[in-house]
């Protein structure tokens, strides 16, 4: 079936098998290999993508369901230079094998887009659907907090620059 959708802000048209999962389609056909398969049953969050602004498990969705929708993967965030979260995970040592990391970053992105300054509990709740077998979760929570600070700084510099411009 032919589908049309937006992937990382690019228009895509593709003829995809009707029984293919979004996970396999994104990895095999679109070559978005940041999207990982862990459990394949909605439990681990390694396959998390952002669909219309919400984090969802791509193993629970058919590729044909993407028709008309807007999808972001980690590759897309890199392309537009939206890397504060990624850097924070690296700086805080919240990555070991890295298999879970793209999924965590996508869930973190949705959290911070909706709640720029989350507390510990809000972070835990938002990342409940992502599992990590290496790091323990403390460093991940620290990374989310660091990302929140970085984004706030970025926003104030942008605002300052705007302010300067207005002042001139």
């Amino acid at each position, binding site marked *: *079936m032919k589908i049309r959708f937006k992937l990382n802000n690019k228009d895509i048209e593709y003829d995809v098998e*009707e*029984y293919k*999962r979004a996970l396999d389609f994104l990895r095999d056909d679109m070559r978005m290999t940041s999207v990982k398969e862990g459990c*394949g*049953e*909605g*439990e681990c*969050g390694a396959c*998390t993508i952002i*669909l219309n602004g*919400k*984090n*969802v*498990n791509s*193993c*629970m*969705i*058919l590729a*044909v*369901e993407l*028709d008309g929708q807007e999808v972001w993967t980690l590759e897309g965030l890199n392309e537009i230079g939206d890397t504060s979260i990624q850097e924070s995970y690296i700086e805080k040592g919240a990555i070991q094998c890295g298999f879970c990391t793209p999924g965590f970053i996508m*869930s973190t992105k*949705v959290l911070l887009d909706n709640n720029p300054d989350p507390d510990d509990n809000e972070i835990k*709740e*938002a990342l*409940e*659907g*992502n599992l990590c077998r290496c790091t323990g979760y403390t460093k991940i929570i620290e990374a989310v907090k660091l990302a929140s600070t970085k984004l706030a700084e970025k926003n104030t510099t942008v605002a300052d620059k705007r302010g300067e411009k207005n002042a001139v």
Partner: protein
Amino acid sequence: MQFKYSKPKTIEELSMLKSNYNAKLLAGGTDLMVKLRAKSCKPEIIIDTKGLGKNEIKFENEKVIIPLNTTYSDLLKNKKFKEKFPMLVDIIKKIGSPQIRNRATPIGNICNASPAGDFLLATYLYHGYAYIKPTNKKIKISQLIDGPGKIKLKPEEFIYSIELKERIGYEYYYEKVGKRNAMNISIISLGIVLKKKQNIIEEIKIAYGSVGPTIIRFEDLEKSVIGKEITRDLFDWLGEQYTKRINPITDVRATAEYRKKMVKNLLIKAFYNLNKTFQEG
């Protein structure tokens, strides 16, 4: 898994497809995709209900109408719903994870007819009814459920929306025992809504999940305690009655013995929790 996919835009078209083929409806897909992967169901065609769109959540006459394709996240975002159905909000927050709640629907939970279905259990306490299309029937949800995974719908029928009644002036208790918080299905669950005057029971509804082929509620037992004082003795007695009647099974999640013990223990825990809120307020 190999099947065709269709996303009809009208009730008639959807209903025709459903009755003419070995078909499965797809809402959030969080139950269906697991079953397809396990090959425990092999439909010829998947019918995506999202082609019918999503109507607004409506409130009228102390009731909420939740339409097709409404997700758990939609409900958690709805201010009125949060105000009027605090127990359901607590239950929903414990279903799956954010990723699951962003896709999964209460109607999918009902139609999946699992004895562990958390939202399904809640509909037993909230006077839940389902509106069915294209036949335009309105049926009590507990009467629709016909065993694990079985729901009494004709080939052409599907659930179009559900209705729940507000429980104004009630206290509630909900507990699900599981291996991990927020994920996966429960080993046993218990939900209670209680209305009392002083310390006397005016109305009580008690529903257990995961201890039988469907959600379990005994209305005669509920009626038998109306007008009685809320005491530990009364809840001990009630616990004995439920233990006598409920015959859980052993499965990968827990043994029958464990579940049977928990039937009574959870009820006693409920007593202390409900009484705590009474003493405080």
